[in-house]
């Protein structure tokens, strides 16, 4: 058995938020938001000038974060975070502002690792005064920790106090605000011990939910059950009510249909949750509160509670010293259903949505004058809540909240395909994302998104462009200088862009370089010489020697160097009087110079001491400019092609420089080299010796590379232009080279004006373009096309750039059902639907809404939509060209008669599998159907042909040798196209199958994935028209997606978040195809399965549930990788290693990092990645990339252990990413 080695990398981290909190985590006045998504913990800050949330830091913790809570011990000005995870430990994290990262203050073990029923970590509650925290599990266990401060203001944590209650389930827990009395935690519990013993079921029916107060006695140091009372059986959520001086204390218990105020020995107050007044109301559905937030103001407080339809309600409490007088509820606004809501003191609301983008709103008002009906608890005193008439409100557009910023997410990500439909260098990812009416079709590209400021047509095709200031102290550029083949044009930057004639520039000749030098003068380098223009337009000219030309030039604010056609380099420097002086000697290079670069003058110095000269004999020379050894060659570097562009630029960097006193400690001097063959190199330039070392390489495109220095979000970056435009910059501490999602430029420069402070100017053809880079932290750009319902699957048209998407939503009214309801309710027949994106589609139990949409990703439009009627929902889709159907034969004859050319591809059919009246729990179904549509109108239309009933919903289908292969429940069937219906040709049925969810075919081999029973390989025997299993799996994997790597090997993912690679034994595979006798037919089943078993080659836990998997190439010129997408929005790859050396290196690095970079929440990395099955043959690249984040001394010691330098290790780690992905 051969083995494989894979390297796992996350490209796009999950974007679903599990929990979000707000607090002053960096100890400043400004409040920040911390979110937990997947295994990442992220800190956001609101930037008022940009009007958006900015990601400050994101940390991978290699564990499942289940809940987070902020707390602040008394007397501190900084909030800390408590994390409930799967590590069996309580982690208290602090954000260190200087290091922009989280560190753990405490990590206390209390139980086993993993997500278990009785190991705390599911719930967290914190005493509002920060004196204690309770961490609890779903069943039985509750632990209370006392938090305090020692004399040095460090947070201390006590040993845990137990408040366990066996055989009881916990629904919710919250800290109670009791001022400075002993801390109390309120819990919603159900005790099932009696129900477990009563066979009659009586006890189960009479089961009661209780609200229990657990008091932590700080004096006696133990927890007591203080008070317990029965609450409604359907209660689900607790909200703390301010206490002490701020309010009446107690809790709000949210339950189905209403909200109750409860407190020990206090009166009960109830208000209903109002329902929408719409004609589609399902009387059997009751509203619940899904999340809420309490906000305290100076003298007042209020709650915002969200119902399961997304409506926000404002709840206020009237109270006096005796207690609560009344509870009031009022409709506030509607926002998408959220996981958690956070209110910032500055008047903003953050809503972390369950599906789709997270929204950040500003409060316009607090609903005081909205005129909405207020429901008061004094009207709901006696009797059962269900006896009162229902409370209604009219939903409307938001009045109190205004949307400020949306954080785009791809959550949930349901299906994806990698394809190159646009013919770009790199392929795009086409994905289905989102839930319900907030779902969308995404086109994802690797690249930085830009905003275009100006695009204007010029009179000719310029060859180059520069921007220049007039004086050194100017903040903004004053001129745009354009060079044409026969002249130079100078434009002024201001309110309007106008031509400048008195600039002093020579306009009759092309220009080679423009630079503002000294205090207030300008330099123009042109083929015949140099013009030095002072502020009063006095011109000093240096002319090139007779019969020579300037071929290359480089400038900075004090130095100018030009290369002549005689291969000589002439060097000028500015003297104290602001005059350009030529150095007495010239440097003979020996080969014609193609490019030169002198870096910027370091602050506080008069010159840069290096000049890089590129020659067409494929070399780069580093020449000294120091007064002692001016124009002396320091080093030479040979290259693979002649350099077309050079730039010396220091960049922020994590690697230390040994002589860091000479340089800014966290930036390194680099020589950037662009080659004629489209390769971009970055070498470290030693600041003393001028030696080049540690070269990083990246292929950018087919055209020679040109490099320009620009600014991108306050950091110097390199704009590299080839067949695409790229930006080389530093993200966190990693060096990135990312394409711009923009036109391919030919020349560029930095640009700065009042309107656009940090921009880039470029030329493309005869267009001048000015643009800004939006966000360096997002290196993928996604285009969004909204869809109607939750997408399920998609399939591409066999040869056109079109996708067919099937969508279906459970518990939703389809348009036809809505019409029916409208026509029966007389009063509201003129009812106008609310926009579904904010308000959701009307819900109705056991109804389905489903449709098929055609999506054109290139023009971003949807040519057609077919709604399914009769409560049918689509679950599978494929395109099938039936090979030998009678219909097809007839058509072909007809077509031949018509001689219609170019129409031959239209024999493809779209096949959609649907289920009627499906109920998921308990699983019931009124039958499945297979709809057949003829693809017409160049793929942009569908014509219904017929539908065939089958006994179970068809969940997987694919074309197989000109026929249709369908997985119907436990069966696999082959259908052919008939005139009135599909005709069943062959069937395979097995007791060991539950529901076939994936099918892959190759030749005569069929590989099916079952919802519970992993994959089975089958072979189709033409001779006897039979499907025979040849091999299956030993582990019952709950397959979600499968793809073939080669004829013997598959890779796939399962419902628990694992990725695996399985391979069929070679002998078995060969025998199955060669088998012409009856060997397989008569083969004995082995242990009730196929005759043989698959071998597992690799296994890896990724946490997110894989929803699609594909073998593809992501980088032009790169190798193929396995790309997977996860439900919560993850996109990741598994890349194969090329050499054993690399495997050994990364294995070693991973082993060391497991100890040196211990995960923040205390989860053991190896156990985490092997949560279900031990990790096999996969190296965690995300862990390896943690190397760059380590402190310098730790990096050194690790590098020493690996017998390499720090740079080598970093380059190797970064190289793995650029070689395979982005």
């Amino acid at each position, binding site marked *: 058995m051969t083995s494989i080695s894979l390297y796992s990398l996350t490209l796009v981290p999950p974007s679903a938020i599990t929990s979000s909190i707000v607090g002053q985590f960096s100890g400043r006045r400004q409040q920040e938001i911390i979110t937990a998504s997947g295994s990442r913990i992220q800190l956001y800050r609101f930037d008022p000038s940009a009007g958006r949330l900015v990601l400050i830091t994101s940390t991978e913790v290699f564990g499942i974060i289940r809940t987070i809570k902020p707390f602040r011990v008394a007397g501190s000005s900084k909030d800390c975070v408590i994390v409930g995870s799967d590590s069996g430990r309580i982690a208290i994290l602090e954000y260190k502002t200087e290091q922009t990262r989280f560190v753990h203050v405490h990590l206390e073990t209390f139980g086993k690792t993993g997500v278990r029923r009785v190991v705390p970590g599911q719930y967290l509650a914190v005493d509002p005064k920060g004196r204690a925290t309770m961490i609890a599990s779903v069943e039985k266990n509750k632990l209370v920790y006392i938090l305090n401060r020692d004399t040095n203001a460090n947070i201390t944590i006590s040993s845990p106090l137990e408040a366990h209650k066996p055989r009881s389930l916990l629904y919710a827990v919250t800290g109670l605000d009791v001022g400075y009395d002993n801390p109390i935690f309120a819990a919603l519990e159900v005790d099932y011990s009696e129900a477990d013993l009563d066979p009659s079921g009586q006890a189960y029916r009479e089961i009661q939910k209780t609200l229990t107060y657990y008091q932590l006695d700080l004096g006696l140091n133990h927890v007591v059950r203080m008070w317990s009372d029965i609450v409604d059986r359907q209660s689900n959520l607790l909200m703390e009510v301010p206490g002490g001086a701020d309010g009446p204390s107690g809790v709000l218990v949210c339950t189905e249909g209403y909200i109750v105020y409860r407190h020990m020995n206090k009166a009960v107050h109830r208000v209903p949750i109002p329902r929408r007044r719409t004609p589609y109301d399902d009387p059997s559905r009751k509203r619940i509160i899904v999340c809420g937030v309490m906000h305290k103001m100076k003298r007042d407080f209020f709650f915002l509670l969200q119902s399961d339809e997304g409506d926000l309600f404002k709840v206020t409490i009237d109270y006096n010293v005796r207690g609560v007088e009344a509870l009031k509820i009022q409709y506030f606004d509607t926002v998408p259903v959220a996981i958690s809501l956070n209110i910032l003191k500055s008047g903003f609301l953050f809503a972390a949505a369950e599906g789709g983008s997270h929204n950040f709103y500003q409060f316009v008002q607090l609903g005081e004058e909205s005129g909405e009906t207020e429901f008061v608890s004094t009207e709901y005193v006696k009797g059962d809540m269900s006896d009162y008439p229902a409370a209604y409100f009219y939903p409307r557009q938001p009045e109190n909240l205004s949307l400020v910023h949306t954080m785009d997410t791809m959550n949930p990500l349901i299906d994806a395909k990698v394809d190159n439909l646009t013919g770009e260098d790199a392929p795009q990812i086409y994905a289905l994302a989102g839930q319900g009416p907030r779902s969308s079709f995404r086109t994802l590209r690797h690249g930085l998104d830009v905003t275009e400021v100006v695009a204007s047509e010029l009179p000719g095709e310029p060859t180059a462009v520069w921007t220049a200031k007039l004086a050194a102290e100017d903040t903004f550029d004053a001129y745009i200088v354009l060079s044409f083949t026969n002249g130079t044009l100078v434009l002024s930057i201001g309110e309007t862009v106008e031509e400048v004639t008195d600039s002093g520039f020579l306009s009759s000749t092309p220009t080679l370089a423009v630079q503002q030098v000294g205090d207030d003068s300008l330099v123009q380098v042109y083929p015949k010489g140099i013009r030095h223009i002072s502020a009063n337009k006095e011109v000093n000219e240096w002319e090139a020697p007779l019969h020579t030309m300037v071929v290359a030039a480089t400038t900075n604010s004090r130095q100018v160097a030009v290369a002549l056609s005689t291969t000589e380099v002439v060097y000028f420097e500015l003297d104290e009087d602001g005059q350009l002086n030529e150095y007495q000697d010239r440097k003979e290079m020996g080969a014609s110079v193609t490019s030169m670069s002198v870096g910027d003058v370091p602050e506080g110095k008069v010159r840069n001491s290096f000049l890089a000269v590129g020659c067409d004999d494929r070399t780069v020379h580093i020449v000294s400019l120091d007064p002692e050894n001016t124009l002396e060659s320091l080093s030479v570097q040979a290259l693979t092609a002649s350099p077309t562009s050079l730039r010396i630029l220091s960049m922020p960097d994590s690697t230390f420089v040994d002589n860091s006193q000479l340089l800014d400690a966290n930036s390194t001097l680099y020589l950037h080299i662009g080659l004629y063959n489209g390769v971009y190199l970055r070498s470290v330039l030693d600041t003393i010796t001028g030696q080049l070392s540690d070269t990083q390489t990246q292929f950018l495109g087919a055209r020679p590379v040109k490099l320009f220095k620009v600014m991108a979000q306050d950091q110097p970056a390199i704009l590299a232009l080839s067949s695409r435009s790229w930006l080389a910059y530093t993200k966190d501490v990693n060096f990135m080279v990312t394409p711009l999602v923009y036109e391919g430029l030919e020349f560029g420069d930095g640009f700065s004006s009042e309107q656009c402070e940090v921009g880039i100017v470029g030329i493309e053809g005869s267009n001048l373009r000015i643009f800004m880079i939006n966000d360096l932290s997002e290196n993928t750009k996604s285009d969004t096309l909204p869809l109607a319902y939750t997408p399920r699957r998609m399939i591409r048209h066999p040869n056109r750039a079109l996708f067919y998407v099937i969508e279906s939503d459970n518990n939703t009214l389809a348009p036809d059902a809505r019409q029916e309801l409208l026509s029966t309710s007389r009063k509201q027949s003129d009812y106008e639907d609310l926009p579904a994106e904010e308000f959701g589609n009307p819900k109705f139990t056991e109804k389905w809404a489903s449709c098929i949409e055609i999506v054109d990703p290139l023009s971003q439009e949807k040519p057609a939509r077919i709604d399914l009627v009769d409560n049918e929902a689509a679950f599978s889709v494929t395109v099938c060209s039936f090979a030998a159907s009678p219909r097809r034969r007839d058509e072909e004859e007809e077509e031949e008669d018509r001689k219609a050319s170019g129409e031959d591809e239209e024999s493809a059919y779209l096949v959609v599998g649907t289920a009627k009246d499906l109920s998921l729990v308990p699983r019931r179904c009124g039958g499945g159907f297979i709809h057949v549509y003829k693809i017409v109108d160049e793929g942009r239309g569908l014509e219904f042909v017929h539908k065939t009933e089958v006994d179970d919903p068809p969940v997987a289908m694919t074309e197989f040798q000109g026929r249709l292969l369908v997985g119907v429940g436990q069966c696999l069937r082959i259908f052919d196209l008939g005139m009135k219906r599909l005709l069943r040709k062959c069937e395979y049925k097995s007791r060991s199958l539950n529901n076939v969810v994936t099918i892959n075919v190759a030749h005569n081999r069929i590989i099916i994935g079952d919802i519970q029973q992993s994959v089975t390989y089958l072979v189709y025997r033409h001779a006897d028209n039979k499907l025979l299993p040849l091999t299956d799996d030993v582990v019952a994997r709950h397959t979600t997606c499968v793809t073939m790597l080669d004829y013997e090997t598959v890779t796939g993912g399962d419902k628990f*978040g694992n990725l695996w690679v399985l391979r069929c034994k070679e002998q078995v595979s060969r025998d199955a195809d060669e088998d012409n006798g009856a060997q397989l037919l008569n083969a004995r089943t082995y242990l009730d399965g196929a005759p043989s078993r698959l071998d597992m080659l690799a296994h890896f836990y990724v946490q997110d549930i894989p929803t699609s998997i594909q073998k593809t190439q992501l980088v032009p010129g790169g190798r193929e990788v396995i790309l997977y997408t996860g439900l919560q929005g993850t996109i990741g790859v598994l890349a194969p290693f090329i050499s054993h050396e690399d495997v050994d290196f990364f294995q070693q690095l991973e082993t060391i990092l497991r100890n040196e970079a211990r995960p923040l929440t205390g989860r053991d990395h190896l156990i985490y990645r092997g949560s279900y099955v031990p990790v096999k043959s996969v190296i965690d690249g995300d862990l390896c990339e943690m190397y760059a984040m380590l402190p310098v001394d730790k990096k050194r010691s690790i590098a020493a252990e690996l017998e390499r330098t720090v740079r080598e290790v970093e380059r190797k780690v970064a190289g793995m990413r650029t070689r395979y992905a982005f």
Partner: protein
Amino acid sequence: MADKLRAQQQLEQLQTRYVGVGHADTTKHEWLSNVQRDSLAAYIGRPAMLEHFSVAFNEPQERIRVQFIDKMIQPCGPPKDKEEI
């Protein structure tokens, strides 16, 4: 005999400490209920898994969470009468 008693005591201690530790007379119903409760708790505890169910049912995660805890009360119906067995 003393050894046997001690073993018995140790087992009882384990049973009170760790939910789900079986004994010689564990019935199928008890075992099944225990497995189901473990599974349901695992579904709730993993955010991705809860979302998976939530998307399938098209219901908010909070509703699914509460439904699953409700199910944990009696996942496999009422216990069989001891005498019946």
